[in-house]
């Protein structure tokens, strides 16, 4: 029996076993290498994806769990208008350094804004608190999300 789900807007079927990690399958079977592996323990957020509108660590998800779900990775999200706003805002404050946390951080940003289009700084920080970044000290990322909230009026 195969596992059916929607990946970045496309119906897909995976031959993976139900106990395999979504992270590994996304990277190998579906070539979504924008999903990064930082720890495989749910502690860093580099592998964040959005399942049914909610941010999750894909290393903590067994393939069987995603049956009939909608999964969005950076590969799908980057085609959206909302991404374009975040892209610009991240660039404007140079919030990307080594880049390894960035795809996960961008998806976390999306989930913050989707829930609350006008978040406070504290809410932004809370929203990315599961996404470790060792380079930036987080200030630029927080600023970028706050700029996106202002610039992306109506999109969220």
């Amino acid at each position, binding site marked *: 029996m195969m*596992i059916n789900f929607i990946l970045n807007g496309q119906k897909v079927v995976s031959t993976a076993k*139900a*106990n395999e990690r979504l992270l590994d399958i996304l990277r190998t079977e579906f070539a979504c290498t924008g999903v990064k592996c930082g720890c495989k323990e749910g502690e860093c957020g580099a592998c964040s994806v959005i399942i049914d509108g909610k941010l999750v660590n894909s290393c*903590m998800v*067994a393939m069987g769990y995603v049956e009939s779900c909608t999964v969005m990775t950076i590969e799908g999200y980057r085609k959206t208008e909302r991404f374009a706003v975040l892209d610009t805002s991240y660039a404007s404050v140079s919030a990307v350094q080594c880049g390894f946390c960035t795809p996960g951080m961008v998806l976390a940003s999306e989930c913050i804004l989707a829930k609350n289009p006008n978040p406070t700084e504290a809410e932004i920080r809370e929203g990315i*608190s599961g996404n470790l970044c060792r380079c930036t000290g987080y200030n630029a990322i927080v600023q970028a999300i706050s700029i996106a909230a202002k610039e992306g009026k109506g999109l969220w």
Partner: protein
Amino acid sequence: MVNGYQATSLKEALKILAKESVTPYSGGTDLMIDPEEHATFLFLARISEMKNIIEDTEYLRIGAACTFTEIIENELVPEILKEAAAQIAAPAIRNLATIGGNICNGSAKGDSALILFATDAKLRLVSSRGERVLPIAEFYLGRKKTALKSDELLVEILIDRINLSNYYYKKVGARDALAISRVSFAAILNVADGKIVNCMTAFGAVSDIIIRRPDIDAMLVGKTTKEAKVVKKEYIAAYDQAIIPIKGRISAEYRKAVCMNLLRDFLESNGI
């Protein structure tokens, strides 16, 4: 599905559980840290009987497969549980992790389990043979050992509909997010007609099992605040004996000191 079963109803899940050698998979956030290579999972996330949060005359009933995000966002859930749930890990984990998983994991560090100890919650365990309701204190048998039978599922958590608004809660972690409890403490104290009608305390992450000692707390029940002050010393001494932190990476001395400090602060904040 290889190495997995999808259940869409409780009945179906229990049938599979009775027949096959499977690991119930709720949110997966504990199981996937170090998954067994050949594990066969029974996925529970689609079982609607395990996803409800409802009130009846006696209890608030929380489906075991409710995620912490769902618990935080539900208006029926008491503040003490929401506060504890909101301090678990980070949003992405709270979107997956479930209250049932936090309990069945059997760890004394479980942040929601602590609240359920402090509120003397009960667990509804169901198998294809029937069902039973167990006080949470009886569910925990030892470190990572629970009373759950291999054909049973934890379906609901039942919290008595008593007043839980006057609570005290503190989680002590290493940082403000993504933190595992080093010590946690929860307590509820209600006063009616000038007398303490209930006092419920629980200490997490210090021992193999969350420490809940109604026998000690009973010292304060039925007393006025003034009378409680008289037995305060004795009460604290009893907990000083009862709390024996197990050795860990964080010293037993530190954890003991924090427990006692929080216990005293809880009493003081209630005028005792």
